[in-house]
C-alpha cells in the first residue's frame, strides 16, 4: 500500500504548526518569512474555492495566519483542543444549524458523532473547564461568511459554492474544495 503523502502544512507560508513554540518551529517560521518576502502577498493570499456542489469549505478572514491545515488539525480545532490561531487570536467556531447539510458533513467526517453526541461532547468539554463555550450556530451560509468577515479568528464551515470574495478558504491536507482528495463533502 502506497505511503500516504505527508500533508503540506509544514511547508506552507503560514501554518498553524508555525506558531508552535518548539525549536523545530523556527525552520518553517524562517521559511515562511522568506516566502512572504519573495512572493509579497503570500501572507494574505485568498484562495478561491472551485464551485463544487457538495464540498464544505473552511472559511476564515485573510488575516488568519494559516493557509492550510492537516485533517488532524481541523479535528483539533473543531473539538476545541486548539483554541488559538496564534497568541492573541482566538478561534471562534461557527457551525450551521442542525439538520443542514454542512453541519451533517462536519459531524460525519470530522467529529464522527451524532447530533446528540455532539451536544453532549460540548457540555462535557465546558463542564471540564477545557473550553469556555461551544460553537455558535449560524442559520445560513451567508450569515456565516458575514460573521467570519467581521470577527477576528472566526472560522465557518460553509457550502464551497457560496464563499464570497475576500475570504480565505483553507486547504485541508493540501487540497481545496473541488480538488481530488478533498475530504469535507
Amino acid at each position: 500500500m502506497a505511503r500516504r503523502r505527508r500533508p503540506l502544512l509544514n511547508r506552507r507560508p503560514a501554518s498553524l504548526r508555525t506558531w508552535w513554540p518548539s525549536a523545530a518551529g523556527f525552520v518553517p517560521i524562517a521559511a515562511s518569512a522568506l516566502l512572504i518576502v519573495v512572493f509579497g502577498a503570500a501572507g494574505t493570499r485568498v484562495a478561491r474555492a472551485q464551485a463544487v456542489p457538495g464540498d464544505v469549505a473552511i472559511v476564515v478572514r485573510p488575516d488568519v495566519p494559516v493557509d492550510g491545515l492537516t485533517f488532524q488539525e481541523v479535528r483539533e480545532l473543531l473539538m476545541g483542543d486548539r483554541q488559538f490561531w496564534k497568541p492573541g487570536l482566538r478561534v471562534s467556531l461557527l457551525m450551521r444549524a442542525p439538520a443542514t447539510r454542512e453541519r451533517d458533513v462536519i459531524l460525519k467526517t470530522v467529529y464522527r458523532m451524532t447530533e446528540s453526541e455532539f451536544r453532549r461532547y460540548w457540555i462535557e468539554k465546558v463542564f471540564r473547564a477545557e473550553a469556555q463555550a461551544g460553537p455558535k450556530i449560524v442559520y445560513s451560509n451567508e450569515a456565516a461568511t458575514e460573521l467570519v468577515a467581521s470577527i477576528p479568528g472566526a472560522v465557518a464551515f460553509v457550502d464551497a459554492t457560496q464563499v464570497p470574495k475576500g475570504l480565505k478558504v483553507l486547504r485541508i491536507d493540501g487540497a481545496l474544495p473541488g480538488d481530488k482528495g478533498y475530504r469535507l463533502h
Partner: protein
Amino acid sequence: MDWVLLLLALTDRPPILQPDAASLSTRHAVSREQVDTVARQPDLGISHSDAAPPTLPTAAAPNQPAAAAVQQGMPGMDRDESSGMPTMQFRGFSDVSYHVDDRAGTANSFSLGQFNLFITSKLSDKLSVLAETVVEADQQNSMGIDLERLLFRWISSDFLTVSVGRYHTSIGWYNTAYHHSAWMQTAIGRPFLCAFEDNGGILPIHNVGISATGRIPAGDLGLRYIVEFGNGRASRSPLSEAVQNVVDENSGKAINLAILSRPAQLPGLEAGFSFYYDKLTPSERPKVGETILAGHVVYQSSQFEWLNELVVIRHAPEGGGSVLRSTGFYTQVSAKLGAWRPYVRYQSVSVPDADPMFPDVGLQRGPSLGIRYDVTEWVALKCQYDRTERRRQSGYNGVALQLSFTF
C-alpha cells in the same frame, strides 16, 4: 412502564440550553460580543433549522468597516447589552435514587442526589469564571450547600491557562472527568477510589490554590501538563473539614504534577500519570509526608468505554516509623447498544489498619454490574448491583436505581 412514558412526554421538548446555542442573522458587520449576546438568549437554543432566525441588536453602522467595528468594541466580552455586565450561563445536574442492601441495620431508602448548579461567565476572551455549587443532604438528612468548584481562569494561549480558586485535584481521571454530575457518569456512583472526602474517600479530591495547564508541543502525542499548588487536605483531626477552604493547617503547600496524552491517531484514548505531595500535620502525632502516585488509561468512544485507574498513597511519618501504603484501583467496561448501555466495574481500595489518616476505610472491593438507559438525550435511568467485600467483616450486596438528568 407508564411512568417511563410520562417521563418521555415531559422531556420531549427540545432543551433550552445547548452548548452551541447561538443563532445569528445579520447583513451588517457584527462584533464578537454581539454574537455572544445572541447566544445568551434562552429561547434561541431550539435546534430546528426552520426556526425563525432571530435578529441581532443594532450592529455596527452598515458602512463601517467590519474590523473597525470589532476593534471599537471590547472583543470577546460576553455582556448584557442593557447593563454592560458579564452574563452567566447555567446548567444543572441532579439525580434521585433508591437503594437497598443486606447489611444489618440498614433500611432501603429513596435518596436525593446532588443538586448541582454549574455556572460559567466569560469576562473577556481570556478571562472567565467557573463555579459548581452543590446542594445536598448528609447522612443525618440535613441539607447543605457546598461550593465545589470556583475558578477564576486566565487563558493565555493553548499552552497556558492559569486558574485560581477551588478545583478538583488532577489525580487520576475520574475526578476531573465527571466532577459532581451523576448524569455524565455511566455508572450510578463513583468508584470507592474516587469517593468524595465527606463520603469516606481517600483522595484529596478538592483543593484550594492555583493551577496551570496547557498543551505540550509534541505532535500527535497530544500531550498536556497540569501543575497544581494548593492548601492540601486537613489532617489535624478526623473531624476537621477535609478541604482547607480558608485556613491551611501549615505553611507547606500540596503540589500535584500531572501529564497526560491524547494521541491524535487514537481518538478517545487518554493515558496519564500524576505525582502529588503534601505534608500532613495531625495533632499529637508526628508530621506525615503524603505522596500519591496515580496512573490511568481510559478509552471512550460513543459505542465503547474502558476506564482503568490505579493509585498508590504513601504515608511516611517524620522521624521514623513504618511507612504505610494504601492502594486503590478500578476497571470499568461498558458498551452502548442503542439507548442501553450495560456496564461492569471491578474496584478495590485497601488501606492498612494502622493508617491513622483513614481509620474507617480498611478493605473494600468487589464487582458492580449495571445498565444505563437513556430515556432522552438529557435523562438517564440506571440500575446497578454491587457486591462489596470487607476486611474482617462480612460482605454485602446492594441494588440501586437512579434517575439522573441535566437541565
